């Protein structure tokens, strides 16, 4: 899939339609490394995401 490089995060909806994860992907070709990050405050990846948002960035909206 064409993955956005800027922003580097994309929000995800769960099957209930609630946005509760964000994903980020790295790599130049397959296989890409895709990380799905739950909105858990003590998850390091989520903390990194919040720090990125605090810098004024905005993730791509969920589908």
């Amino acid at each position, binding site marked *: *899939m064409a993955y956005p490089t800027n922003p580097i995060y994309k929000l*995800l909806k*769960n*099957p209930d339609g609630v946005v*509760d*994860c964000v994903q980020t*992907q790295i790599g130049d070709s*397959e*296989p*890409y*490394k*895709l*990380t*799905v*990050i*739950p909105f*858990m405050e*003590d*998850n*390091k*990846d*989520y903390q990194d995401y919040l720090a990125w948002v605090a810098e004024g960035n905005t993730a791509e909206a969920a589908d």
Partner: protein
Amino acid sequence: MTVINPSSISGITSITMPSGDGNVLTIHTNDGVERFRIDSSGNVKVGSACTISQDGDVFFTGVTTATTYAGSGANLTNLPAANLTGTLPAISGANLTGIAATDNVRTGILDVAGVSTFRNTMNVGAAVTISESGIEASGIGITVANINGTQIGGRRNFIINGAMQVAQRGTSFATVNNEYTLDRFRIQGSHNGAVTVTQSTTSPDGFSKSFKIDVTTADTSIASSQYSQLTYKVEAQDLQNLAYGTSAAKTISVSFYVRSNVTGTYTFAIQQSDNSGKQVSQTYTIDSADTWERKTFTFAGDTSGVINDDNGKGFDIYWNFAIGSAYTTGTSRAAWTANADADFAAGHTANLLSSTSNEFYLTGVQLEVGSQATDFEHRSHGEELRLCHRYYYIFADARDDGSTGQLATGFAYHAGQAEGTIHYPDMRTAPSLVQATGTNYYGAYNNGSNATWNSFSWYQPSPRVGLLYQGSTSGLTQGQGYRLQFANDNAYIHLDAEL
């Protein structure tokens, strides 16, 4: 000579000897033997064995018997040991000499107020030997409250994977930065160079692995705010026995083995961010190129900096490889003091990034309670792996399990959604789902219908269970069971709950 021979003489009050040779008084027994004499000097002699001189000296060659003696005994010599009995007075033994090699000092209690130095091996019975090399105790146990101020047995080392045995994410990381590499160890930096990290088999005796960083793009001029470093984070609740923030805060020791072709001064630091934001930092030198060297540091406990009892960061530990002047111009801190950038790497001068020929190895990392860095606590690969699983867990990996490796028993929630619950060992927090993604990497299979897709989503993960699902596929039969499995040999499902 005048002879007076009565049987008794009385009333004589003075006898005066004549002058000259006669100036002596002698008394003889009837056999003519002289028994008593007062000579011209006033000395009194009784026979030949007793002389009392005018100046007060008394000489006996026979046995002297008296009820008591008084006065100085300074010149008494050759006192027979068998005749010295009773209680010794409180006297100095400073001039005791010639104590024989065995059996001559015996006491029930040896009470020494000052420092005792035994110049040779000391034996306690037959089973304990104390020598300059250590203490040997054969055939008996040793009962002590602690060693080095802490528990005696295993689990001295707070560091997980300190021997660099576990590498779940891989054993080689090309052009890596700001990522975890070998388990629990994260490479990070901001500089113009580039590095690779590998799990190396170059290691000191007793170790089989090490962390190795190779410089692939040099940065010969590190800017003021730039840095390259390795970090390790200790979970806060695992540090509670340090009693930081109390008067009982414990001293810690850190030790590790390093090796590099770049000799010089490097820095090591620990930061503690809970409540107080404090740090300690120290320099160390790599003295000989391409030679393993063990470095040790000891830091007194922090009586004011409480470490929270939670699953967050307790310690951030840093090994700096290259670092700019913004962090080096201050003062090294052996005591916990408030974070200050200038002190963080004070004294650091080495620049590992200066050449693509440069490399740096690290292993045997140990953090323990006490003022003495002890030998590295080796743990089995299995133990270390289980400890690492709290922070990173390979749920399944097609590179090891095969391109059709199984993931979970799933079902079709509807025709376009496959899902399956997975369970894993308790992790530090609800983990991120880390997966390889590519065209049709994953699939759902049963005897009637199949579907493939590129990646999974992640629903309601907890520290021990989560739901893999794919809601944008098609061709499934609602309600039917499916095998969720890999469909590409590069696919993997990992879980990440690192600090």
